[in-house]
């Protein structure tokens, strides 16, 4: 089970949002869009605020949902690291944390999708984060 936690709005003073990843078609497999819609109460919150998650180690990531005319919301998603404003990213940590977010997503989507299948795919492509 993932130790990732959904956070209410964290304090952002002295931080910056460091862009990591963009997904233009969150609904390519619609169950992924449904997972985020439910997990972050997006029918109520809409575009008013990002979602935030914290890893087991305490790193915070912002999930910015994207709307697109004619498509179900959210149409897309961007992931940002919330980091000290003037500090560079630790790429190894970011990779490990992104994998943790993807595993959490897979477990949340469920059905035929699973963190175990994600790990197997990561190992096939020799991703360090998947081999840990």
């Amino acid at each position, binding site marked *: 089970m993932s130790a990732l936690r959904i956070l209410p709005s964290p304090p952002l003073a002295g931080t910056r949002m460091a862009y990591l990843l963009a997904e233009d078609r969150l609904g390519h497999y619609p169950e992924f869009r449904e997972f985020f819609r439910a997990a972050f109460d997006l029918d109520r919150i809409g575009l008013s605020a990002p979602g935030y998650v914290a890893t087991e180690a305490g790193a915070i990531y912002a999930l910015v949902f994207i709307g697109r005319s004619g498509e179900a919301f959210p149409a897309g998603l961007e992931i940002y690291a919330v980091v000290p404003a003037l500090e560079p990213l630790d790429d190894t940590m970011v990779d490990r944390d992104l994998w943790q977010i993807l595993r959490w997503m897979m477990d949340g989507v469920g059905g035929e*999708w699973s963190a175990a299948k*994600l790990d197997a795919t990561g190992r096939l492509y020799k991703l360090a984060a998947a081999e840990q």
Partner: protein
Amino acid sequence: MTSAIAVPQLPEAIRARWPYRPRFATVNGWRMHYVDEGDPSGEPIVLLHGNPTWGFLYRDIIPPLVAAGFRVIVPDMIGFGLSEKPVREQAHSLDGHIANLTGLMRQLDLSRINLVCHDWGGPTGLGFALSNLARVRSLVIMSTWAWPTPPAEFHTRIFPWRMMHAPLVGPHLLGRHAALVGRGMYLSVVNREKFRAEAQLGYESMLPDPATRLLTWAWPRWIPLDDKARAYERFTWLEQELRKCTLPALIIWGREDDVFDAATFSARFKTLLPHAEGPLLVTGRHFVQEDSSPEIAAAVLDFIARLPA
């Protein structure tokens, strides 16, 4: 707003293997790179690549075709090689890529085209051919498909296929970590040592940053898995038109291709094009040109030489 990424530079080791003059055309507003080698008055052979390659895939096929007197044109699909690389997934569609190729073929005013297609060069190339029959003389089909149902059982599986390009996983695995142009290609050739030594840099250097790799995860999402898929109608049309097609055709397949396996795929093309020659089985997995370029070049030349005038 910057909509695309600048032209990458070829590493010196790759320039030695790709000595062809770069040419550019504007198609549908995008900058498309292509090479145009050989006798300008020669009969054209157009070589089409797929995901995640570029014209480099045909580097050892171009010289024998040119030496035989043909005009050889090798475009890089928008999003790959030295062509412009849009940074939004919405910039890519199957119809758009067919239109891009059609734009180049019309700008060059090519006719009597012998069209050689591989991977996504299949749906795009056949889409062009079947909507511009008067410009095309023959077809050579390699490791591709052109029908609306899932290409193979492999493409319906979560592991490894659908997981690889799932939401967020695609941009992470294929974008941030270059999984398809890196290990994915490496696993999809027979002689992996030769590929790593001679060719892999040629592919990886064309997609150096995550944003440049967008089409590597966008294309898998265009493979129809059911009748609600975006390209379902286009692939239905492709299959219908292919059944009516009487163009001379040659089917070449990699004996070791375990994704687009020869038994399933070449048999289906033979059903659609019963008059087609082949399948000619050569050494190769999906990127069959990496293992059998001399054999493919010889087969193409022999096939064209026997076409009715």
